[in-house]
């Protein structure tokens, strides 16, 4: 009941955002000079994490991507409302054969150095990601590509080894699906990896003005941008990892936009004269993963007892309030393949104790602190609930960089929380934490792997959805994931600015509007 109300609210929010954007574009077209009035606005943004790399083939890190999506662009984008693919750098695309995709490029796109975009750049960008020496984190996502062919200056064809229904989605920028950003061939070929990283040249609405590594980064509007000009002229990004410092910087007017507002400070910002909260319910999907490859959770009954001990709804209601919702399956609600018939697990302490059969299980576990919304508090609340049915938890706070390294080397303990960006809106994201071939997976279930394999090669949408629904059912019945919830992406904004948070954790400077000087 609550969930459907929330998703309805989100939908209407998205609809109104669309209205706003269309309205603004129209007004910008009609009233040229008026739109120019705000054109010299500089906006200061405080991110919670630092920027390491700006080479699109070498990083998938959130803060890096927030900057790269302003500088570089992709062939396609997702429609925020319908979740469908829309043309972007490509003006049209077509599946010519089950294994052959053709993209027609716009002919009015120029890189920041004035060179026009051609099909050769697209071919180069894809092949760079596929070069083993680059060791791109996106490699596995587009590994199905066997050949990229330049047909003419503005036509490019992509051939895949097997039918790949997701190839189109790999060409859009949101989520972790592939992020094939188009880079200029002439520049990348003649400069070193370090140079192209330090001085990126793309086609995007912004270009890099200054990057003081570790301190700040400034973006400047691209005057020759092919699309609608963004409202904000300059964006200056700084990094404030400390939660309360970041909030205070916004309230004192030192910055105009902050990322990741902690729940405890939402009310302070709402009450402030100069700031407001902007939230998107499409935040990260948080999964409480049980490592079912090792004892004790290689036993189904133990997993079931664990799940029955938890009252995740109680935790989310109290700790996240209106900015959180419990989900039944490890997929964001905007994913088309969600199986609506599955219900979230219900707490049942009696059953849990019965399954535990008087046993006590000691677990050494870790949590991040500040990586996700209220992560440490939620972890502690989960531990307390588990304690009453015989799971004895030794808690430990761990720095995120180290914790994710431990997850990848399978030493992060019997259970942990990790959040997933479902921006690409497809169930195949589940593979990241469930497919036995993924580095961050905690399960090795041949049945799941088989379903995922079949789904990945199924070109028929209805059949594909059916396969993913079977996979969800399997995951639910086997208690691989103890709890799933989604926390909103909460931003703090100066009242002088307006923005609709549609992409959850993906902050897009180009869509920020200046409403007051």
């Amino acid at each position: 009941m609550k969930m459907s109300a929330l998703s309805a609210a989100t939908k209407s929010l998205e609809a109104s955002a669309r209205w706003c954007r269309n309205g603004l574009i129209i007004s910008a077209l009609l009233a040229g000079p008026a739109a120019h009035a705000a054109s010299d606005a500089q906006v200061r943004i405080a991110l919670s994490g630092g920027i390491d790399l700006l080479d699109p083939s070498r990083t998938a890190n959130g803060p890096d991507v927030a900057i790269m999506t302003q500088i570089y662009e992709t062939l396609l984008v997702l429609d925020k409302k319908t979740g469908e693919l829309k043309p972007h750098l490509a003006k049209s695309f077509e599946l010519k054969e089950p294994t052959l995709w053709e993209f027609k490029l716009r002919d009015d796109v120029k890189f920041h150095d004035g060179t026009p975009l051609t099909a050769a750049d697209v071919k180069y960008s894809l092949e760079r990601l596929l070069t083993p020496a680059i060791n791109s984190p996106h490699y596995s996502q587009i590994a199905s590509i066997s050949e990229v062919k330049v047909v003419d200056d503005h036509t490019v064809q992509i051939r895949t080894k097997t039918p790949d229904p997701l190839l189109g989605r790999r060409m859009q920028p949101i989520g972790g699906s592939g992020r094939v950003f188009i880079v200029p061939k002439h520049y990348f070929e003649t400069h070193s990896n370090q140079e192209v990283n330090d001085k990126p040249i793309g086609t995007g609405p912004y270009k890099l003005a200054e990057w003081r590594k570790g301190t700040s980064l400034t973006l400047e509007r691209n005057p020759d941008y092919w699309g609608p000009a963004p409202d904000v002229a300059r964006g200056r990004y700084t990094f404030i990892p400390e939660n309360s410092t970041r909030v205070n910087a916004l309230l004192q007017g030192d910055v105009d936009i902050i990322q990741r507002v902690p729940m405890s400070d939402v009310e302070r910002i709402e009450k402030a004269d100069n700031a407001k909260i902007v939230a998107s319910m499409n935040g990260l999907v948080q999964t409480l993963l049980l490592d079912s490859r090792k004892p004790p959770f290689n036993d189904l009954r133990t997993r079931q007892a664990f799940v029955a001990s938890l009252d995740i709804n109680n935790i989310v209601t109290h700790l996240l309030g209106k900015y959180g919702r419990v989900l039944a399956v490890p997929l964001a609600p905007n994913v088309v393949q969600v199986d609506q018939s599955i219900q979230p697990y219900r707490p049942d302490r009696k059953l849990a104790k019965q399954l535990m059969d008087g046993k006590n299980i000691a677990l050494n576990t870790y949590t991040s602190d500040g990586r996700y919304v209220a992560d440490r508090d939620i972890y502690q609340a989960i531990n307390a609930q588990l304690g009453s049915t015989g799971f004895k938890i030794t808690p430990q706070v761990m720095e995120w960089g180290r914790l994710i390294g431990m997850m990848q080397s399978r030493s992060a303990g019997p259970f942990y929380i990790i959040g997933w960006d479902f921006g690409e809106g497809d169930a195949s994201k589940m593979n990241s934490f469930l497919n036995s071939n993924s580095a961050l997976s905690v399960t090795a279930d041949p049945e799941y792997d088989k379903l995922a394999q079949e789904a990945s090669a199924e070109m028929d949408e209805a059949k594909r959805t059916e396969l993913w629904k079977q996979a969800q059912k399997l995951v639910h019945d086997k208690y691989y994931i103890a709890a799933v919830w989604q926390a909103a992406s909460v931003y703090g904004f100066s009242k002088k600015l307006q923005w609709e948070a549609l992409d959850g954790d993906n902050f897009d400077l180009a869509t920020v509007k200046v409403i007051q000087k």
Partner: protein
Amino acid sequence: MMKNTMTMGPLHGMRRALAGQPVIIVAAALFMALVLAAAIAGEAMTPYDPTYQDLGARLLPPGAIGPEGRYWLGTEALGRDVLSMLIVGARPALFVSVVAVFLAAAVGICAGVCAGYRGGRLADALLYLSNIQLSFPFFLLAITIVGILRPSVPLVIGVIALGSWVPFARVTYSDTTQIKGLEYVEAVHVMRGTTLRVLARHILPNVLPNVLVLATFALGTAIVMESGLSFVGLGVPTDTPTWGRMLSEGRDYMQTAWWLTVLPGGCIFLLVLSINVLGEQLRDYSDPKLNRD
């Protein structure tokens, strides 16, 4: 180092000003007794189970009445009773610091007495080593060691001891060099007393009063170190609350729930101050020169 700038510096002046005031000494002794009682009794003394979470009673201010009764010092972000947490948190703060100071004193005295008595290269080595130790930022060292080896009770104690042994060694070293030149020590030598006898019967008893005073100051510093390590998540791993961790967890609520940081912070401050006031008292008492003034 941290000790000099953070605890000794400002507190030293305050100690001197307060030491003559009997009220302050009584208050310090009372607070000390209270903390000791909490550390010994632990959960037997708490009004609520300090680990019991009640998400419906989150962030209640001090004195508020919740579903389970009155919370004299309020509740924290997960609805646990702050007073109960503070009581239970006294034990790790005291236990770890006391053991660490004992360890540091033992190591420091051994090193100081040996180097002072032998002199020569051994003394040079000790001075050199303690200079290195003093010039290395302790907290950085502690975070590195505990971070790499994963926190555990012996490791945290060991690291704090590592950060506290130098003053013991330095003081006993200079006391020993002074005492070994005195006539009665020479007399023992003349009477063919063994080295062991000299050390045990004549030197050790004479350095101990200073060590005792030093230990009280080191204890204060050790409590701050233990809380600091807990604060950055490298303290003793336990599911019961510690003051440092309470401080760290309350930090996010500093603007909205002051009691989560002010109360554990106040406890650390008052405990360290009490120990220092009592230590000052002990020093005045044990130093005959000061008594004569």
